[in-house]
């Protein structure tokens, strides 16, 4: 990919995202009952989606590092986790705004997705704290990888098991039924998926930039 094509694609991505931003405000609000504030939907869902994607990438490289013990695999796991945590914070904030708009309350523990986003925040906050507490690079990688793998099963527990055993707590009379969102018109769905696409590309762009930077640092240190 010559640098010219690369620049063009990057600029194209920005135009695409600008379009998403523009139309997410100019078109009618995706949810009539809530009105204007429901536009946050175009940004909150991609954030939550990227949190999961980033932590999945981190988990994969944690497993890979335990086998290869290559420093670069460890950095890939760490870097993906750091980006994931950034998106996790964004998703938690936009999620609570979304909840305020939808249910009139900033935080609602009985909403499984809110619980699992918060749980991810706790797990990876602990993961980063653990890594900060270990000076030896190899041991830091190994223990960090072990912890993120060990913590993983708790996430599906909260997403799949919890909602079933907590039906009573879930406010059935919520103003908006979650899956109602996706029965939106073609226009809303188009903007949403383009937004999802843009954010995913941005994530992988930041991710590969970070990994390339670290690889250069390693090669520089070697020579």
């Amino acid at each position: 990919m010559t640098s010219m094509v690369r620049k063009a694609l990057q600029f194209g991505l920005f135009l695409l995202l600008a379009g998403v931003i523009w139309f997410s405000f100019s078109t009618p609000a995706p949810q009539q009952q809530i009105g204007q504030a429901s536009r946050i939907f175009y940004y909150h869902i991609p954030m939550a989606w990227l949190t999961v994607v980033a932590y999945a990438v981190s988990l994969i490289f944690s497993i890979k590092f335990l086998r290869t013990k290559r420093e670069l695999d460890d950095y890939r796991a760490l870097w993906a986790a750091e980006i994931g945590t950034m998106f996790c914070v964004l998703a938690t904030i936009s999620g609570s705004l979304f909840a305020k708009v939808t249910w009139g309350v900033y935080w609602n523990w009985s909403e499984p997705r809110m619980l699992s986003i918060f749980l991810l925040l706790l797990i990876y906050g602990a993961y980063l704290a653990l890594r900060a507490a270990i000076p030896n690079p190899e041991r830091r990688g190994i223990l960090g990888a072990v912890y993120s793998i060990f913590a993983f099963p708790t996430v599906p527990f909260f997403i799949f098991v919890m909602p079933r055993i907590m039906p009573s707590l879930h406010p059935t009379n919520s103003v908006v039924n979650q899956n109602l969102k996706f029965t939106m018109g073609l226009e809303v769905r188009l903007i949403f998926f383009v937004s999802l696409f843009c954010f995913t590309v941005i994530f992988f762009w930041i991710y590969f930039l970070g990994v390339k930077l670290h690889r250069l640092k390693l090669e520089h240190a070697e020579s």
Partner: protein
Amino acid sequence: MSSKSSGWVNKATAVLVKDIRTELRTRYSLNALFMFAFTTLVVVSFSLRQAALKVDILAALYWIIIFFASMSALAGVFIKEEDTKTAQTLKLYAKPSVIYTGKLVYNIILLLLLCLLVTPLFVILMDVSVPDPLPFVVVILLGAIGLAGATTLIGAIVAKANVRGALFAVLSFPILLPLLVAAIGGTNAVLSGDGWIGAENDIKLLIAYAVIMIAISVVLFDFVWNG
């Protein structure tokens, strides 16, 4: 070499017996554990004695006391090995799985002891009526085993970190959330008289949780121990 299977259990018990004997002589974990549990219990019961508490509050209180008390002692069994540098000697004498099993059983016994002492006191001090004791005891036992099962590996991780402080509690809490939810749910169901049926879901969850966590711990422990 003696046959592998019987030797394995025999060696794991050797590790367990060694830890129990050392603990009885020093009593670090025992003191920390029981002092923590009793002081919290007394403070809670003293301040909340008058308020007739709803059952779900009592269930949550019980497990909060057990959780924080266990955070003060469950990592000790590995931290001792690292700090006194006996871990390096042990590496030359036993397989990681043998060591993990011995330490896991030790933590389970420690927690069962804690529950054995705290539960009657909790029932008396908080004036809790236990409709049918059997499911109540089962939920507590399963909760204790799950708690020990999930935190033993984390204790091994924390022991290898140089800066420890509250790291053990910070690392353990998110992983223990499912256990706490199930244990509190189960205790709540039993205390409000629903008995086995009410607590059935939670009991299944507790069993699944303990099995999964211990299975993963056995696989991952090698990396931590040789890390």
